[in-house]
């Protein structure tokens, strides 16, 4: 008769358990402090954009302030040449700058992903055509392409987002295509084909989930670029900003003649653009390091 022995739990060898999500996040943050700070700033900027109307101490078009006064307690970022509170306008301006940043990246990512999926999965002539189209788009200076687009379609939130999305699309498409090309030769794809799945199902059920990581990474980096592009377009007078809905780029443009004599009219909107672009870029870099198995664990 077999002898049954009962051991106390404490005498068992330790079991390796996965850390919880929060613990994982903490560990990642400790490993990537710059990325973590950047991510926190990104989240803060998004929150500011969402709640700007409530946070801003004044309406963006309120002219009940002194003109061109420097930063003070009552006007932390000073006031502009049209008697407006720059702090309030920077807060409200985040709605257009970040809003268009996200919208354009969403458009560019969806379009680029579809292009990349189709090109990579079908390869051959389809790949050739899609790749060449993307090459042509990449061959045109991005801002020129957006300006060309906006001279045809009147600037609006959607048209500006589409214009910027258009210049994001090729980069996303190339990355997705590359990933798909390597995945489509794997056995599980062959197995999926063997049991009769159609191409659409295979692309979206079996291929896409495996290229999500690079898509997330490139999208997070592209947000910074999109914010910069929106600011450039606004600066050139092709944005959608108005007196009641300013954007950071338009604020810079409107105050150009006062830059030399009243530094704050340029510094704060400019700093907002820099902060947003830098944060999203650094966050994207950190995300890439975390999600890319080859880079995981690197400093």
């Amino acid at each position, binding site marked *: 008769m077999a002898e049954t022995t009962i051991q106390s739990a404490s005498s068992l060898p330790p079991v390796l358990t996965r850390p919880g999500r929060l613990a994982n996040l903490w560990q990642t943050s400790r490993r990537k402090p710059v990325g973590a700070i950047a991510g926190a700033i990104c989240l803060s900027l998004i929150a500011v954009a969402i709640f700007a109307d409530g946070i801003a101490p004044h309406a963006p*078009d*309120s*002219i009940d302030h002194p*003109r061109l006064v420097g930063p003070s307690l009552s006007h932390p970022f000073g006031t502009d*040449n*049209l*008697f407006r509170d720059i702090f309030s306008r920077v807060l409200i301006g985040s709605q257009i700058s970040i809003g268009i940043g996200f919208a354009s990246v969403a458009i560019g990512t969806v379009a680029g992903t579809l292009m990349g999926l189709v090109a990579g999965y079908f390869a051959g002539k389809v790949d050739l055509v899609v790749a060449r189209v993307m090459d042509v788009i990449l061959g045109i200076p991005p801002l020129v392409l957006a300006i060309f687009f906006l001279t045809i379609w009147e600037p609006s939130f959607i048209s500006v987002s589409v214009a910027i999305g258009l210049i994001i699309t090729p980069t996303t498409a190339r990355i997705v295509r590359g990933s798909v090309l390597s995945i489509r030769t794997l056995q599980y794809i062959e197995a999926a084909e063997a049991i009769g799945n159609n191409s659409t199902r295979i692309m979206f059920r079996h291929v896409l989930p495996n290229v999500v990581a690079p898509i997330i990474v490139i999208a997070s980096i592209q947000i910074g670029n999109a914010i910069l592009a929106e600011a450039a377009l606004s600066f050139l*007078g092709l944005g959608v900003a*108005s*007196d*009641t809905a300013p954007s950071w780029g338009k604020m810079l443009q*409107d105050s*150009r*003649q006062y830059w030399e004599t009243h530094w704050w009219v340029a510094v704060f909107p400019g700093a907002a653009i820099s902060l947003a672009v830098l944060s999203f870029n650094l966050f994207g870099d950190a995300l890439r390091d975390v999600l890319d198995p080859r880079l995981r664990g690197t400093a």
Partner: protein
Amino acid sequence: MTRQHNYWLRKPFSRRTVLRGAAGTTVGAGAFALVGCGNDDDDDQPPPAPDDDSPEATPTPAVSGEPQHGGELTWLISATPPTLDPYTQTSFVNAYVNGVSLSRLVRFAAGVPEVEPTDFTMEPDLAETMPETPDELTWRFTLKENAVFHDVEPTNGRAVTSEDVAYAINRYKDFDESVHRSLWAFVDNVETPDERTVVIHTREPYADTIQIAGGNLASYIVPQEHAESNEVATRMVGSGPFIHESFETDNLLSWRRNPDFYDDPYPYVDSTTVFIVPDQTQRMEQFISGAVDLTWIHLEEERDRILDARPDAGFDSQPGIGGYIYLRTDRPPFNDKRVRQAISMGIDRQRIRDAVSAGEGENDQIVFVGYPFATPVDQLGDASRYWDYNPEEARRLLDAAIGEGETISTTWDHADAAIYQQAYVDTATLSMATLREIGFDIEQREAPYAQYISTTYQGDYEGMGHSPRAVFYFMDYLTERLSFADGVRARINLSYVDDPRLEDLLVTQRQQFDFEERIETIREIEQICAEEQYEIYWSTQSRSYFWNPAVQNYRPTAWFPYTHLMKAWKEA
């Protein structure tokens, strides 16, 4: 401006006195200017009264030494002309460059030290002398014997004939694509009894005939063989002091001296180039650095910076008209004068002046208040209250017009800041901010200049718009702004004004050769416009001009054509 040099301050004139005065090129007549930029319009006027708060304004129109030939004059404009064809364009940038290459029957005498910049006295150009006027309906011009077109294709130096002048006037008057038809509508026909005689017969006595013949727009003689060619949009061929050489969009236009120019010894310089620099700050910096000889229309803050940076530069400053709001008075809600009055009272003009013109300037009305004969706003009687910022009263007027607590949703179209400067946009922005507070929901629609000038400025807009005000070198300019005679909207009647009281007065004033009588009529027009607020005016602004001290015999003019460059020389 001294009394001696002020046409409008002197004692009343008869028509013949006016003509004699105009005929003498030394007459210091003058005065009535409103350069507007966009006739689109832009402006300048008599020099401001000294102000303790102003920088030392020491106009320096001196001449030293003997005239010297040679060298190049460089200057700046803010935009590429939409086309160089004077028959089909109303843009002020056209007027700048057309006057360098193209001749007129008569031209402004201003542009030299001895003539006030805002003096709109004319002197003979293609005409040998000022015209003979055997009766009030006939104006006889004799062309200069040595007047020839440029020695380039397609004219190849042929003589300028009376047929060329008749062709030009008829083309301005009748050509389908002419934007100046209403300006020349007073002409019945043009006779050419011989090659050098042009006789203009008018439909009615028209007191501003000479001003139209030599004005900023619709006065240039372009020969038929060039006017009807495809090149007219990009090349100027005429008989003016400089021969057009190149036109590079968004970059420059250049000219060389016309050796066959009929007014010897002009021009003094061998060549002239205008650089197209849309950015006002860049224009200022280019002058400060010495890269160009002339710069123009700088507002108060820039004026002070240039004065600091280039104390050696020639400098002249004059008050100029600001912009105005136009609105569709032919349809609701702006067909109700209470709404228009509310808009005027809902604008804080002092605050706008503080923001865009260093607090300088004063309330303006339809006849620029810088003119000595204009009625100051505070003397417009009961209507002067519409210039006071009074949001409560404005709201009360709106309540009465559209219902208590109701709001007005409308559009406001305007050009971007590239051409008219940021102050132009800022003025609208500040106005909209205070109008929102009294119940206007305004959609601001900004367009590139070329689009604006060819759509909104032609009357193609929905609710409201704004523009700088046009050059006002002839009193009948009021007809251009206010007439809707026979159901035809006048060229820049952008507010669609259609008021029989005004039509009668407009006809009366343009037939009045006696200055004092005419001014009485003008005052009635001012009063109606003040009460009706057909157009809503902001404030005067000062305009400053600077030039390289090596440039002699030069003075800026309030007028657009740069014809006067021919009289300037550069010291070696």
